[in-house]
C-alpha cells in the first residue's frame, strides 16, 4: 500500500502545468467560445504531444494506455487551466472504438491529436461538434449507469445541428445529425462512460483547485476596512470548507482511477463536481461584484464548475450507482479493494 503519486506522475503534472501556464489558456478559451478554434486546435496539438490522449489509447494503436491514474493526473491540470474542447469526449471515444478495424482506423489519430472526437449517447448533446473531426453517436446503450447492455449501435455522424450556447460559453453543445456511417452494431458504452466520468471528475477537481487558488490570492490582496479581507474569519472559514471538500475529493479520484469500478468512479464524479461547484460559489461570493463579470477570467472556471456537475451523469445518477454498488457487497466502496485483495 502506497497511495501517493510517484515522482514520474508528479513530474508529468508539473510539465503539463508549465505547458498550459505558458499557453495563456484564458485567451484560448475566449476565442474558442466565439467559435474560433484556431488557437484551441494549436493547444490541442501541444496537449497531444505531451502524451495526454495517448494515455487513453492502447499501445497497439500508437498510444501508451489505458493509464487511468495518469489520465486523472492530466485532467486535473486541464481543468486547472480551463482548457476548452471535447477532451473528455475524446477519451470516451477511444473506449468506444475497440473493435480492431475501428481501432486501427481512428485511434492513432486520436492519440496524436490529429483527430478530435466528440460523443453523443442516446441523442445527448455532443460537446463541441463544430470543432470535432470524429462525431460519434451511440444509440440504444446509453442507460446512464455504466453497465451498458452491449447492444448499442455506434455511428459516425456526418454533421451536426446548430450550436447551442452553454452556461459555460466554452462548451458548445450540438446535436449530431441522423444517419451517417454505422461503425458497429453491438457496442457497449459502459467503459466509455466510466472513463468519461473519471476524466470529468479530474477536470472538475482541477477547476475547483484553480478557483480556490485564485480566490486565496484575491482575498490576500483585496483590502477593506484597512485590512486584507482574507483576515476576516467569515472569509477564512468559507475557504477552509472549500479546501476540505477538494482535498477529500482528491483521494476518491485516484482510488477510482486505480479500481475503475463504476461505483468508485461515480463516487469520485459526484464528490469532485460538488466540491468544485461549492468552491465556485465561494469564489464568486468572496470576489464580490468583479467575480460576477464575464470579462474577469474567474468566470471561465465559475461556469465550467456548474456545467461539469451534470456532464456525463447527474449527481443523482452517480449516487444511485454508488448505492447499487455498495449493495453488491463486493464494491471497492464498501472496502472491497482494501479488505479483500
Amino acid at each position, binding site marked *: 500500500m502506497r*497511495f501517493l503519486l510517484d515522482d514520474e506522475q508528479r513530474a508529468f503534472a508539473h510539465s503539463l502545468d508549465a505547458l498550459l501556464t505558458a499557453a495563456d489558456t484564458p485567451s484560448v478559451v475566449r476565442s474558442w467560445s466565439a467559435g474560433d478554434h484556431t488557437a484551441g486546435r494549436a493547444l490541442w496539438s501541444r496537449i497531444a504531444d505531451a502524451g495526454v490522449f495517448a494515455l487513453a489509447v492502447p499501445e497497439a494503436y500508437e498510444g501508451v494506455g489505458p493509464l487511468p491514474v495518469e489520465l486523472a493526473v492530466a485532467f486535473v491540470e486541464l481543468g486547472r487551466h480551463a482548457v476548452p474542447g471535447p477532451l473528455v469526449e475524446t477519451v470516451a471515444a477511444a473506449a468506444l472504438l475497440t473493435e480492431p478495424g475501428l481501432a486501427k482506423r481512428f485511434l492513432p489519430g486520436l492519440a496524436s491529436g490529429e483527430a478530435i472526437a466528440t460523443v453523443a449517447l442516446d441523442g445527448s448533446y455532443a460537446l463541441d461538434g463544430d470543432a470535432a473531426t470524429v462525431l460519434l453517436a451511440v444509440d440504444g446503450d446509453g442507460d446512464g449507469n455504466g453497465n451498458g447492455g452491449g447492444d448499442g449501435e455506434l455511428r459516425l455522424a456526418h454533421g451536426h445541428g446548430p450550436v447551442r450556447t452553454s452556461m459555460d460559453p466554452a462548451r458548445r453543445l450540438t446535436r449530431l445529425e441522423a444517419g451517417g456511417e454505422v461503425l458497429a452494431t453491438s457496442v457497449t458504452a459502459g467503459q466509455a462512460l466510466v472513463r468519461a466520468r473519471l476524466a470529468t471528475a479530474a477536470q472538475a477537481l482541477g477547476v475547483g483547485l484553480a478557483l480556490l487558488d485564485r480566490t486565496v490570492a484575491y482575498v490576500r490582496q483585496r483590502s477593506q476596512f484597512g485590512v486584507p479581507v*482574507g483576515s476576516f*474569519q467569515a472569509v477564512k472559514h468559507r475557504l*477552509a470548507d472549500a479546501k476540505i471538500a477538494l*482535498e*477529500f475529493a482528491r483521494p476518491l479520484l485516484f*482510488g477510482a482511477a486505480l479500481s475503475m469500478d463504476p461505483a468508485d468512479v461515480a463516487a469520485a464524479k459526484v464528490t469532485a463536481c460538488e466540491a468544485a461547484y461549492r468552491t465556485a460559489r465561494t469564489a464568486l461570493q468572496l470576489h464580490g461584484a468583479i467575480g460576477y463579470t464575464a470579462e474577469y477570467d474567474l468566470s471561465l472556471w465559475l461556469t465550467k464548475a456548474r456545467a461539469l456537475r451534470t456532464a456525463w451523469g447527474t449527481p443523482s445518477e452517480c449516487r444511485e450507482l454508488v448505492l447499487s454498488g455498495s449493495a453488491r457487497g463486493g464494491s471497492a466502496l464498501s472496502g472491497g479493494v482494501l479488505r479483500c485483495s
Partner: protein
Amino acid sequence: MDLTHSPADEAFRAEARAWLDAHVPAEPLPSLETEEGFAAHRAWEAELAADRWSVVSWPTAYGGRESGLVRWLIFEEEYYAAGAPGRVGQNGINLLAPTLFDHGTEEQRARVLPPMATGEVVWAQAWSESEAGSDLASLRSRAVRTDGGWRLSGQKTWSSRAAFADRAFGLFRSEPDTPKPHQGLTYLMFDLRAPGVTVRPIGRLDGKPAFAELFLDEVYVPDEDVIGEPGQGWRVAMSTAGNERGLTLRSPGRFLASADRLAALWRERGRDPFTRDRVADAVIGARAYQLFTYAGASRFLDGEPIGPESSLNKVFWSEYDIALHETALDLLGEEGELADDGGWAEGWVFSLAGPIYAGTNEIQRDIIAERLLGLPKGRR
C-alpha cells in the same frame, strides 16, 4: 500508486478478524458513559490486552505488536466491522501515550503504558477550564513547587470520562508572570483519587455523566509525573498534534462500519427515496475518509510530518459523523427517537460533541486558512 496490502498485512488482517470473531461480545455492552458500562468496557480492554490487541502499534515491551501505521488502520477496519465495543481507554491511548513516546522518560513509559494498555488505569484529560476553552493557553490552574514535586490547585472542566477514570493529564501554570500566556506551563499527570481532588460528574445532553469538573486543592504530584521540562508544557502538548496523532484520533474503520450499517438500514427500510442521496453521501464519505487517511499514512511513512493537514481531517469526520447519524434517525422515524437502547440515538448525542472537542471546528478552520492556505492572521 497502490492500494493493495502486502500478503503479510493481509495475514495480519485475517488474524485480527479471527480473534475478533471469537471474542467480540454477542450483545452490545451497556453504555460506556454509565458506571456499569464503564466497568464492562474496562473488562473488555483487559480481554483485548491479554492477546495483545489493545494497542497494536505500540512496542511489544508495553503490550503492543509494533504493527506500524498501516496494520493499525487494518486492525481498526476489522475492529469496527466486527461491531466491537467502544474503547474506554482511548483518551490515554490516543492523547497521552503519543506524548510519552515523544517526551516521556523511559521510566515513565515503563510505569504508565502497560496498565494503560490493559485498562487497569483509565486516563482522562484535564485541559479546559471554565475561562480557558478554545483559548487554552489562558488557563489558570496552578502547579506550585514543593518538596520533591508540585501542588496543583484550580479547576478543570469538560474532562471526558473523568467521572469513572483513574488518572488524568493536563497543563498547569507553573510560572505565574510570563510575557506570553503559553509560556510557563507544565504538563503533569495526577491521580483522580488523590487527596484534594473532587470530581463532580456533569451530565451531557442526554444526562449521562460523560464528562466531569475537577476541583483541585493542593493536590500533591511527584516530580516523576512531570512530562518534559517544567515550563515547556505547551510545546510538549502541541508537538504531538503534528505527528501521527493527527491521523489516528478517529480511524476510518469506525466510519466505514457505520456507513455499512446505515446502508443496510436503508435497504431494510425499502430503499427510502427521500434519504437516498444522504445515504449515498455517507457511503462515499467513509470511503473518502479512508482513502484520505491512506494517503496521509503513505506520506507519514515517507517521513513527511502530518502537521496542519490534521485539521482537514478533524472538521471532516466530526461533521460527517453528525450527518450520518441524522440520516439514520430520519430513516427510523419515530423509532429513531427512542434513546433507551443505545444505538443510533446515543450515537447521535455522541456525534454532536465532535465539532466542539479536540479543538473546535472554528479553530480548525482558522488553522486551515492560516497555515494551509496562507491567509493573514486576524482577530478571532
